[in-house]
C-alpha cells in the first residue's frame, strides 16, 4: 500500500465523515416534519367528515331525484289513464292527421303518426280532442280497436322541467310502460314531442 493510499473501507468512511446535516438543518427538518404531521392529523378528521357528508348528500340527492321522477311518472300515468277512460266527446272527427294538425296548431308542433306506436293501435283514427297532461295543453287522438275498445295516443310538447327524464326513442331508448286499472300505458318522447299511448290490456 502506498503512503497516499488507504483501504477502500477507510477511504469511504473518510468520504462520509463530513457528510452530515448541520444543527440548523436538523432543527429545520424536525420542525417541517412535525408541521406536516400535525397538518395531516389536524385536517384528517375534518377531511373524513367532509367526505362522509359529501357521500351522504350525493346518495340522498340521488334518492331524492329518483323519488321526484317516480312521482312525475306516476302523475303522468294517472293523467293519461284518466283522460283515456273518461272517453269524452271528440271535438274534431276526422281520420286525417294533417287536418287535425291544423286544428291543434296552437300547440306549437305538428301532430304526427308515431312510428313507435304499437301496431295494434294503427287502426281507425276517429278524431281528436284537446286535453291537459300535467296541466299542459295536449292533443288526444282516439283510435277504434273494435266495437267495444278504443286506444288513445296523446301528443304534447316535451318539457324536461315538467315531465322529468322521459326516454327518447330517437336515442333508441325503451318507453316507460305500466299497466294500471286494466289499461296498458306507454310513454316516450321523439325529440321534443312527448307521446303517450293507452289501450286496454286485453
Amino acid at each position: 500500500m502506498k503512503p497516499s493510499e488507504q483501504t477502500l473501507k477507510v477511504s469511504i468512511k473518510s468520504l462520509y465523515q463530513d457528510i452530515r446535516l448541520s444543527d440548523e438543518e436538523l432543527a429545520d427538518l424536525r420542525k417541517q416534519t412535525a408541521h406536516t404531521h400535525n397538518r395531516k392529523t389536524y385536517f384528517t378528521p375534518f377531511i373524513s367528515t367532509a367526505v362522509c357528508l359529501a357521500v351522504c348528500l350525493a346518495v340522498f340527492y340521488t334518492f331524492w331525484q329518483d323519488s321526484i321522477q317516480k312521482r312525475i311518472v306516476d302523475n303522468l300515468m294517472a293523467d293519461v289513464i284518466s283522460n283515456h277512460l273518461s272517453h269524452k266527446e271528440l271535438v274534431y272527427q276526422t281520420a286525417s292527421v294533417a287536418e287535425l294538425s291544423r286544428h291543434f296548431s296552437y300547440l306549437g308542433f305538428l301532430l304526427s303518426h308515431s312510428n313507435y306506436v304499437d301496431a295494434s293501435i294503427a287502426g281507425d283514427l276517429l278524431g281528436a280532442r284537446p286535453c291537459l297532461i300535467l296541466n299542459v295543453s295536449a292533443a288526444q287522438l282516439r283510435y277504434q280497436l273494435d266495437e267495444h275498445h278504443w286506444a288513445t295516443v296523446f301528443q304534447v310538447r316535451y318539457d324536461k322541467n315538467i315531465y322529468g327524464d322521459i326516454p327518447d326513442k330517437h336515442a333508441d331508448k325503451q318507453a316507460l310502460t305500466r299497466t294500471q286499472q286494466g289499461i296498458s300505458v306507454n310513454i316516450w318522447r321523439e325529440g321534443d314531442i312527448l307521446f303517450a299511448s293507452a289501450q286496454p290490456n286485453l
Partner: protein
Amino acid sequence: MIELTNALLQQAYRYAMSLVDNHEEAKDIVHAAYTKLLEKDDKLLENPQGYLLRCVRNTFIDQKRADIRRTTIFEQEVGDTIDISVHTLESIAINQQVLVKLWSEFSFEERELLYLWAVEEYTVDEISQLTDIPRGTLLSRIYRIRQKVEKKALHQETYL
C-alpha cells in the same frame, strides 16, 4: 409519537446521500421518510431504525422509478464458483482523491452497497435484508465494483 435521535436522522441522511449524491434531494427524502415514520403507531414498530432506513430507500425508489427503469443494468448473478465476498473489497487500497472521482461514476446501487458495507458495516446478509436484493445479486455487484476500482486504481496517476 416516535422520537428519533439526531444520530439516527444523520444516519438516514447519509444513507440518502449514498443513493442520490445530492444534498437537497437527500434532505427531501429524509423529510418524506421521517413523516411516514410518524404516521406509524410506535407501539407496532419494533425497529424504528430499520424502518426509517427502509423508508428512505423506498422514498428514493418511488421518486426515481422512471429513471431507475431507464438506467438499470440487467445483473446476472455470479455463480458460487467465483470467489466473491466483501473481503475482496477490504483488500483494495485506494487514494482518497481517486475515490472521490470514482464515487461519482458509481451507480446508486454500487454507492448504496459500498456505503452500507463501509460506513454502516453491514454484512452482505444484512444488506440483502434491508434492500430486499438477493445475496447473489449483491455479490455480483461487489465483483463489478472491485473490477471498477482496480481498473481506476491502476490508472490513478492520470487523475493526480
